[in-house]
């Protein structure tokens, strides 16, 4: 039987290690969630900076298309370099947050919600945006209400651009009538299917269309950022699940009202509870655990802290074995943590080193930084990450890390630091049977057990 501390650190935190050795349990995990952990890190590039840079890139590219200009070419290269370097900085910041968090439950929740509201920049002049969206919309709302997070994440400019909301115009709006433009249902559909009710949430195509009509007016431009534009907003009352929304004057408030209502639908509660339990506990969590979480969430009116507490206080969250798989960046952070890699060895990496040591390995393991595979995010089953290519990349990186630290620990001791009482006898025997310390440590980090959570 694995101790509560070990389960808490591996299942809900970012892993065992010399950092934060206090005896963890459900209450301490819950208590570790503080709003201030969601504070903005200055190394993450804000949306307005990304936007300004994209705007400049667009103008420079246009000018260069008409005529050659060495100064402008140099400026374009400078912009590209800044965006690239800043993305590597963001990667280091987020890796360090995962690896060195005292408990790590907050950071794990950030990852969960970031995947729930998966979005990325679609390329072109706007080079990056995912880290920005997470920093601005997810982190500040981890300990708040789901309504707040939904507003911030679903209406973030990066999400609006990703899901084509910019292309959606109310057919009977001023612009729609004059130019014959119409709806794009992408955001509306994902809002229902992914962000709130869930695929089995019992909505119809008609609901999607109604929601799409209501969402018109949301707009993003590089010049002005996020705005609400009444001239593209569909006028008139729209009925969604038996309630009427909208009407004149067309304002953002109508949309907020819909989001708040969707957040508190029982289908949404069920969807969020079962997704959260599947993420942390098991591919098929105890139905009573999910029911308890769902009911607590609804009863509290969408309070996420209540949702987390319901999970942590239920025995179903602690009974199951460690059957999930660490995502690539979680495995890397857990390894860095267990190896006691000094923080500045991560944060002071150059762009080149970041690419070699963090970015390329993550990509090879199947989780390229700043990217999501689809609006549904990464799959969350234990099997999702277990591919031959992904495992080869994990082994490769683990062996590299073990050989790079100045003095590799003794594998027989390291197995206790990294896995404690969760280590099997097979793993202990393998660790002590390696030829060198470094290979032994690399083996532990590559082993299925270390890659479970």
């Amino acid at each position, binding site marked *: 039987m694995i101790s509560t501390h070990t389960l808490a650190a591996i299942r809900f935190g970012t892993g065992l290690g010399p950092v934060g050795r206090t005896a963890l349990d459900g209450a301490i995990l819950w208590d570790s969630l503080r709003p201030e952990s969601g504070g903005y890190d200055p190394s993450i590039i804000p949306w307005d900076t990304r936007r300004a840079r994209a705007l400049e890139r667009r103008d420079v590219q246009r000018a260069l*298309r008409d005529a050659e200009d060495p100064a402008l070419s140099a400026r374009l290269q400078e912009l590209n370099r800044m965006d690239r370097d800043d993305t590597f900085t963001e990667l280091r910041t987020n890796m360090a947050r995962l690896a060195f968090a005292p408990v790590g439950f907050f950071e794990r929740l950030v990852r969960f919600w970031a995947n729930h509201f998966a979005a990325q920049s*679609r390329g*072109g002049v706007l080079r990056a945006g995912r880290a920005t969206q997470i920093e601005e919309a997810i982190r500040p709302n981890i300990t708040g209400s789901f309504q707040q997070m939904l507003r911030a994440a679903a209406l973030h400019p990066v999400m609006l651009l990703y899901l084509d909301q910019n292309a959606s115009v109310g057919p009977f709006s001023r612009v729609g009538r004059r130019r014959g433009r119409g709806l794009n249902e992408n955001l509306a559909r994902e809002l229902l299917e992914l962000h709130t009710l869930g695929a089995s949430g019992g909505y119809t195509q008609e609901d999607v269309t109604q929601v799409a009509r209501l969402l018109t007016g949301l707009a993003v431009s590089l010049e002005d950022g996020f705005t609400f534009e009444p001239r593209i907003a569909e006028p008139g009352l729209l009925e969604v699940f038996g309630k009427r929304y909208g009407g004149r004057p067309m304002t953002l408030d109508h949309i907020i009202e819909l989001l708040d209502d969707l957040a508190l639908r029982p289908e949404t509660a069920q969807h969020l509870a079962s997704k959260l339990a599947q993420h942390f506990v098991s591919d098929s969590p105890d139905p009573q655990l999910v029911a308890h979480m769902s009911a607590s969430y609804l009863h509290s009116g969408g309070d996420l802290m209540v949702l987390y507490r319901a999970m942590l206080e239920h025995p179903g969250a602690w009974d199951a074995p460690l059957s999930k798989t660490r995502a690539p960046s979680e495995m890397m952070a857990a390894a860095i943590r267990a190896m006691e890699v000094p923080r500045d060895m991560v944060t002071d990496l150059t762009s080149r080193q970041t690419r070699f040591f963090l970015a390329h390995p993550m990509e090879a393991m199947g989780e390229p930084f700043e990217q999501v*595979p689809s609006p549904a995010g990464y799959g969350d089953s234990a099997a999702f990450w277990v591919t031959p290519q992904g495992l080869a990349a994990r082994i490769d990186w683990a062996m*590299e890390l073990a050989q790079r630290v100045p003095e590799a620990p003794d594998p027989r001791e390291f197995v206790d630091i990294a896995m404690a009482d969760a280590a099997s006898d097979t793993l202990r025997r393998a660790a002590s049977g390696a030829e060198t310390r470094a290979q032994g440590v690399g083996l532990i980090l590559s082993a299925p057990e270390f890659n479970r959570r």
Partner: protein
Amino acid sequence: MTDTQTRRAFVTRSLALGCSLAASPLITPIALAGGPGENRLVVIILRGAMDGLDVLRPVGDRHLAALRPGLFGADAAGPGLALDDFFTLHPALDGLLPLWQAGELAFVPATSTPYRDRRSHFDGQDHLEAGTAGQMPPALSRDGWLNRLLTLLPGVDARTAFAVGRERMLILEGAAPMTQWEPGTDLNLSPQSRLLLAHLFQADPLFAEAGRTALDMTGATRADLPEDEMAGMMAPTSAGDADGLAAYVAQQMRGETRIASFSLSGWDTHQAQSRAILPALARLQAAILTLRTGLGPLWGQTTVLAMTEFGRTMRENGSRGTDHGTGGAMLLAGGAIRGKRMIGGWPGLAEADMYAGRDLMPLRDIRAYSAWAMRDLFGLPASDVAATVFPGLDMGETPDLLL
């Protein structure tokens, strides 16, 4: 361990230590009864929007010269390699001429996906790989058409289809099993660690098969390869390493694999196209020739489709390049195809014949060609292809792609 010499010594040692050869993808005798058959399909995604008009030059069209004065110069027909009395081939693709002569190369000069007007690479590639049409938002597509094809084939396992390279290949993602692998992936493992790790993976049912495959594919499975091919595969993969990708595909296809896809990028030639397109052309040519060599007699059962997300503008732009367009060319190669011909007609380059007055008019949905190729290669009913692989597609008349 990038050193081939070291690597080969290591492979030999692993063999001596008894790494399981039976699990090797290369030398397992394959029972093909009930399997997906002997035909092979390679789909190459040309990322960045290939300029079909430059690759396959319609010099017989009297409007061409006026559209591309800077790119082709006064004599548009000059440097091209004559294919027929209307089209020439870009001179950098001269290595493909023997294939044309042998009837192993064909083109569809004017085709495209149903994606229109927004001309974004990101969306265009999603459309191309998802195989979706119309109002289906590309971001919604979560599986690719080659993966949906797999669901129709009997006896498919993870080795039947390979996405090769590091890049994400939506075209092969989905519910059916497949393997993504980047050739050149190597592991810095001592033989002892390899054995210990194999043992650890074996102890966890979820990790057992993927772990064994990972160790096999990085380990002692290449003893039967010629040395030069092996050296090619040791080289780290990069955008320029089309050889390595193709050699790896050929190697897999000599074994159990029947379907493979990889991508070649570098086609987004907004500026100085006559220079900028050369590396991409070299990669495409190298990939096809390497496939042909690597597959040997199996080339006769192979169909290669090379396709891009959309074409480029018919008029060159102010920087001697071309911008995002609509219709473009698809290339077919392989011993299985009815080659040495242009398929699907030519829309013409008069302004009135163009799409939106600027782009090549696509004459037929590119999915129809893929659909007919799949039907013919794998003996599938056309109705199944239309229903499952490309829902809603009207396949139309057969273009008789295969021999």
